[in-house]
């Protein structure tokens, strides 16, 4: 999980309502989220395939992996998401389904190579 934390990251104080962001840093942080999720979904797909998980269990595995990713990202942000992102939803749900296609592909690929033939 290469969550990129800049020291100059967007900051926001909940007390007053003027958001002060650095748009570029925010973007770079979001990009790291996207990368880590994609990476994890590919790796998770391969692992699920090698273990021979089939049926709907595979999707449960995917959601577990994504939940794990969210947890890891929150940990990396030291549970103060507002320091790096503009809302908690970014850490928890951004790109939750983006990796599904990659996951399914690599899951199928590994599963077929190991178990079908």
């Amino acid at each position, binding site marked *: 999980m290469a969550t990129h934390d800049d020291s100059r990251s967007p900051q926001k104080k909940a007390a007053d309502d003027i958001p002060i962001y650095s*748009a570029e840093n925010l973007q770079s942080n979001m990009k790291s989220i996207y990368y880590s999720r994609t990476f994890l979904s590919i790796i998770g797909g391969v692992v699920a395939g090698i273990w021979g998980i089939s049926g709907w269990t595979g999707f449960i595995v995917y959601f577990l992996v994504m939940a794990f990713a969210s947890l890891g990202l929150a940990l990396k942000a030291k549970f103060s998401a507002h320091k790096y992102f503009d809302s908690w939803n970014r850490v928890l749900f951004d790109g939750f389904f983006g990796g599904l296609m990659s996951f399914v592909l690599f899951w199928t690929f590994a*599963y077929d190579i190991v178990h079908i033939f």
Partner: protein
Amino acid sequence: MAEDLVLDTAIRDWVLIPLSVVMVLIGVLRYFVGKLMRSSQTADEKIVKEGQLIIRARNLRAAANFIPAKSFRLRKAYYTNEENGLLHVPKGQATNPQAQMFSDPNMAMDMMKKNLSMIIPQTLTFAWVNFFFSGFVAAKIPFPLTQRFRAMLQNGIDLSTVDVSYVSSRSWYFLNLFGLRGLFSLILGDENAMDDTQRMMQMGGFGMDPTKSLSAEKDSMEIIQHEWALPKMGQRAEEVLRKFVKQ
């Protein structure tokens, strides 16, 4: 699942793996060819000016609350006033983008290059897959699906008795085409991440009128509410300092 098919391991070694590897390599190749073919355009001065202007206006809009009300009003007038404001586009001066495109062959050429670099590899790989690998049952999806997916997953084999979760080689090609995007974004950097869909979008929005975005920017500048942030900042500073003192 009624019956399990027994697939030859040769299919794995000579269809499934080569197909996937080739898809990845072609993706990489396409990326680099696209990079080579991208001509360094000498941008038109007017277009660059307009783009910069829009960025400036946007910055002002984003940071409006950090300057005093008077300064904001001055800047707003500078951008939006009806006589010579920078964002104001006189009527009749708006250029027709279609006409502009025809007058500038470079633009059309560039567009064509982009499209070709997308379409040619795809048709070639598709033809290649069709030629070498047509009719194989190449893979099996590890989860059950309904009959509706038959047309999607078993493109190229016409057997209605085979379980739907088996995937023909041609459909495996399609799955790769869509599913590898994530991998490409990892190995090639983000430029490639959104290529296909993004390009489609660009094609849709192509011939967009630059003057339109100017006037849109002007409108949003006009409706912005200005509220100076400094008074609140005083409070905030006080809070922070108090915290310090407490420690």
